[in-house]
């Protein structure tokens, strides 16, 4: 079905050619090894580049929300600002602190960055641009992203600083609670699609995105996922762990240079990861907008390559997250837990039941109007 349309800008052919040439010219082990290295390098580059773009975009958009211009000195419109920042962070001295548990202190940022890297690896960026496709993709993503919190806790503990400690404690409470909601929201869609694999999920959303397919229930799950994802990434209004007005910088108060850079990078990438998972699970991932039967329209949509679709949808969600972040005051810890345990979680539990009923009684859009999709 998919291959019926001409897709000139996809990487499919290039990657296929690469694979066959490599395997034709050398033993399979070596070919695999080279492919691994290529993939790893590509991911590392993408990781850094996306973070840089995100940092720039956030600063610029934030500025416009706040009646400012944002960075505008380094390059035209300040586009090289985040590059300059990156160089600065790389060159900055890493300050060694007395009376800290050195091993944990230096290990903590790696937990953060490794966790977000692991998650990053499982995201389908486009057609064929999918490094590992587990058949338990959703579960995998929830599992490895939960490792990041250990970095926060250890950073807070090992800094030997009371502000950091309070930040870490808050972070722990926050993360443990909101992971529940995020997980349940994703489960709602797993119920709908009957699969945990990202590729299968995307394939099922060819004509009808999950957010429409499960209508009420899906939309509720989508909103809850966005809220709890936002909370998991420790960004305002849920930025209590690093609440600058009370804890100065929370758990990363004592970090400098590249150590801080890791936390910073991971924070931005986590924002991207949450948005891209939401895109994949709810908004059809890299799949272009297609309407059943309208082949010309579909062909036209396929001319826009899948990765552009993916990044476009993700960008919209990231914008939404920025918009929320810069509109609201920070929650207090009890408000935060109230929101989770008194509102999100009960609603979520009801929602998952509603979804089960919708699926079992054939009330999803695809069941109701099979001719349309």
């Amino acid at each position: 079905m998919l291959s019926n349309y001409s897709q000139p800008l996809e990487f499919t052919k290039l990657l296929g050619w690469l694979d066959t040439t490599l395997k034709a010219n050398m033993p399979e082990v070596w070919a695999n090894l080279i492919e691994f290295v290529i993939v790893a390098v590509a991911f590392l580059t993408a990781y850094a580049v996306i973070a840089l773009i995100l940092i720039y975009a956030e600063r610029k958009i934030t500025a416009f929300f706040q009646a400012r211009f944002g960075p505008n000195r380094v390059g035209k419109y300040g586009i090289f600002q985040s590059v300059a920042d990156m160089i600065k962070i790389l060159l900055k001295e890493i300050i060694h602190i007395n009376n800290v548990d050195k091993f944990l202190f230096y290990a903590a940022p790696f937990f953060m960055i490794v966790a977000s890297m692991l998650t990053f690896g499982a995201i389908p960026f486009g057609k064929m641009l999918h490094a590992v496709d587990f058949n338990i993709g959703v579960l995998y993503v929830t599992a490895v992203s939960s490792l990041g919190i250990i970095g926060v806790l250890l950073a807070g503990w090992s800094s030997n600083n009371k502000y950091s400690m309070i930040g870490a404690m808050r972070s722990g409470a926050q993360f443990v609670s909101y992971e529940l909601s995020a997980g349940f929201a994703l489960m709602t869609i797993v119920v709908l699609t009957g699969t945990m694999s990202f590729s299968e999920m995307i394939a099922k959303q060819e004509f009808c995105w999950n957010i429409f397919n499960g209508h009420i229930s899906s939309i509720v799950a989508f909103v809850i996922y966005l809220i709890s994802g936002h909370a998991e990434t420790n960004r305002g209004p849920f930025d209590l762990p690093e609440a600058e007005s009370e804890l100065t910088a929370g758990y990363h108060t004592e970090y400098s240079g590249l150590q801080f850079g890791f936390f910073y990078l991971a924070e931005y990438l986590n924002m991207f990861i949450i948005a891209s998972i939401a895109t994949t699970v709810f908004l059809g991932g890299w799949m272009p907008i297609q309407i059943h039967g309208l082949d010309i329209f579909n062909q036209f949509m396929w001319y826009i390559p899948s990765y552009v679709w993916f990044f476009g949808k993700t960008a919209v969600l990231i914008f939404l997250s920025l918009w929320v972040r810069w509109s609201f005051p920070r929650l207090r810890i009890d408000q935060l837990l109230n929101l989770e345990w008194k509102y999100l979680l009960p609603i979520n539990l009801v929602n998952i039941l509603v979804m089960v009923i919708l699926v079992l009684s054939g009330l999803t859009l695809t069941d109701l109007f099979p001719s349309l999709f």
Partner: protein
Amino acid sequence: MAQQIIFFILAAMIAVFSVLAVTSKRIIRSATYLLFVLLGTAGLYLLLGYHYLFAVQIAVYAGGVMVLFIFAILLTNRPGENVKTERKDRRIAAGITSLAGLAFCGHIIYWNVNKMYTLVVPAEQKIQDIGLTLMGTDKYQYLLPFEFISVLLLACIVGAIMIARKR
């Protein structure tokens, strides 16, 4: 070949960090070493192709239990202070006991490891199967134990709230 290498790396990691976890005097470090052990185990599952088990191991142990461990350690006042090394005779006794335990376990594993190969089918489990197994009421299905555990956890939560309320 590659699998073998990765296996040995993981095995070494598990072994080293388990020893470290026990010998470290700082409790928060022990917890971190334990975390590495759990991650190594998860790696073994991945090596075997048990993706589901791998994800659950990470989500439940590394992401859940360890977070709670560390969280609990952070809540205690000055953990790990005033820990004394044990007396020499006690240490020797402990060493002998653990060696005996190792020998016992090793014996069992050595004599049964061949049988295990025949039992385990290296095929990817479907999520649906796992779900049905957990929630079914037939033979080799586990709804009852599952619910038992749920009730147990509920009791724990109620107990915790009762204790917290008293303060």
